[in-house]
């Protein structure tokens, strides 16, 4: 039988061993029963508070310490304890109240230093803008870096053609660079609304096939509206995300494609562990080297995510989209499905596995080639490891992509092995 999680935790328990958590919970239940019989017994009160803190139930510890102030308000160490507990709950007005009250007493220097450190952290946490820079670099080994055709002979308009060796898949190594800047704006809204701005730059340079070097610039702004819950609704914690995203892709340092995308997504929790979202998008695309491919996409996306008691996140995604291009043969509809499983493995290691399948059907015949239909399958396995200070992340990824097309020159597959390293601790805050 699986162990029950501690239902009253507000923060992650300080203990990590499930058996120890269960033992501590049982011990706390015994102390609580004793406390109900003898509620002013200081030994019981401190034991109950300490065990509650170990289990992450900070509210229980708060109630014990606040109860003590009903008899005696001049308890600076209890006030400090309350300030720290409220700080850990991100309940900053109460944290500040208790921490500042410690200063009214003749507290030892080390206590006052601790108070100032927490008050300083609250000033940082209450700032309206949070900036983060992430730098990543790595290497990818691709089995098909030149987008080669994996056949000796292909058929075009009924005629067999021999594929020259130079057009067959060739391996290569890509150097990857990525920079992401995120600005999070806290709107100080009673519903917790915020805005996220992101700018991401990527650059991928191949050792041999430099004609396939790609760079991209992505900018996006997302406003989250947390909605009021409705008792008759099946959703709790409903929210609406409105976002606008622009990106540009360069191929061999020449502009290839630009896009402006507008998304509106509703998200709501069906249970504490099951979250559902549905959204629509409109994406305006411009192909700078072939305007006939330019057009717009309208789409609908659904996703479900489930987090198990053992903290394994499973996500299922579905997307329908229709691309309306200037050239009718470039117009298509697409259905895609995705499944992601993410889990922490302990000792800073993480694991993610993804599978996806997409079907694309074009509406009109391509000149010479005829009707184009495609199936794109991909599988991805990733292991990541965080450094002890959580600033440096290493990720090791194997990805297999397989594109089957009714027009053989578009069929290709590629196996990629990637090692990436990211530094995430370039963080600074600016005051409101």
């Amino acid at each position, binding site marked *: 039988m699986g162990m029950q999680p501690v239902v009253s935790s507000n923060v992650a328990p300080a203990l990590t061993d499930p058996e120890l958590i269960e033992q501590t919970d049982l011990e706390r239940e015994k102390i609580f029963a004793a406390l109900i019989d003898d509620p002013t017994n200081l030994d019981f009160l401190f034991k109950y508070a300490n065990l509650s803190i170990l289990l992450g139930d900070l509210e229980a510890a708060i109630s014990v310490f606040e109860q003590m102030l009903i008899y005696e308000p001049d308890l600076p160490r209890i006030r400090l304890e309350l300030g720290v507990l409220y700080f850990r709950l991100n309940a900053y007005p*109460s944290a500040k109240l208790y921490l500042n009250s410690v200063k009214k007493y003749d507290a030892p220097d080390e206590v006052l230093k601790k108070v100032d450190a927490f008050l300083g952290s609250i000033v940082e946490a209450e700032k309206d803008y949070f900036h983060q820079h992430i730098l990543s670099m790595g290497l990818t080994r691709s089995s098909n870096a030149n987008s080669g055709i994996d056949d000796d002979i292909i058929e075009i308009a009924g005629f067999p053609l021999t594929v020259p060796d130079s057009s067959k898949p060739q391996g290569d190594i890509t150097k990857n660079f990525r920079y992401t800047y995120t600005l999070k704006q806290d709107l100080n809204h*009673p519903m917790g609304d915020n805005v996220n701005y992101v700018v991401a730059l990527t650059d991928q340079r191949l050792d041999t096939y430099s004609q396939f070097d790609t760079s991209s610039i992505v900018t996006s702004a997302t406003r989250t509206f947390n909605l009021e819950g409705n008792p008759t609704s099946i959703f709790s914690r409903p929210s609406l995300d409105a976002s606008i995203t622009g990106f540009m892709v360069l191929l061999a340092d020449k502009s290839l494609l630009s896009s402006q995308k507008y998304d509106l997504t509703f998200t709501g929790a069906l249970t504490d562990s099951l979250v559902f979202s549905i959204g629509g998008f409109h994406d305006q695309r411009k192909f700078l080297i072939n305007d006939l491919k330019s057009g717009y996409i309208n789409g609908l996306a659904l996703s479900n995510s489930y987090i198990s008691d053992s903290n394994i996140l499973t996500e299922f995604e579905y997307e329908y989209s229709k691309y309306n291009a200037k050239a009718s043969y470039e117009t298509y509809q697409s259905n895609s499905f995705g499944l992601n499983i993410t889990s922490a493995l302990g000792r800073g290691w993480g694991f993610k596995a993804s599978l996806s399948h997409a079907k694309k059907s074009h509406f009109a015949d391509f000149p010479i080639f005829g009707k184009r239909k495609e199936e794109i399958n991909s599988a991805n396995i990733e292991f990541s490891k965080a450094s002890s200070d959580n600033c440096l992340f290493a990720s090791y990824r194997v990805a297999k992509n397989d594109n089957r097309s009714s027009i053989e020159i578009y069929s290709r597959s590629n196996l990629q092995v990637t090692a990436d390293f990211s530094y995430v601790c370039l963080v600074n805050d600016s005051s409101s």
Partner: protein
Amino acid sequence: MMKLLKISIFILALLLAQFSAAKEEIGVASAVNKNTTDLTLEEERKLVQAGYKIIQNHTLETDAIGRAALLLIDGTSFSIGPNSSVTLDKFIYNPETAEGSLEVSSRGLLRLVGGKVTKKRPALIRTNSATVGIRGGITIVQTQGLSTSAAFVYGDELTMTPNQNSSAATSLIENGFVVTVEDPTDEVSEPQQLSETFLAELQKGLEAR
């Protein structure tokens, strides 16, 4: 005649069941600093001291200098300020599943620190002008005349519904805000940031002087 007897026995059994449920101990007065009384269902007034067992539907009242704390068997705790009262209207708690519900009526100054039952279902605090719902958290509710203020100290969600204007219900998800209803027919005020000064004023009533 037999039928009448059976009905009488059934009614008597129901009454006894209700009486025993009403007498059930649901917690304890965990701290009492001076004058707090318990108004029983029989309209008796008893002086409350620490360790006094709390019975459902009883009303605990403090006088002008009284302060008290109550601890319920699910871990929920209440702090009651001076000239205040709280009636534990409904408390259901299943220790096996840690589920249940909690509804109280209050006047004056009350702080609620949620226990197990409020994690899933909001605790409801009824005043003469509004009902405050708090899920998974801590709130301080103060009534002055017909006005009710609720400070969202910590938690998942706080809702405030004017008693005679349910369409004006307002929810808060971000803690650190205060909402007020001036009278039962009124709208809920725009949420205001919970200042340290306002919190200190409330806190004064919940600590020994």
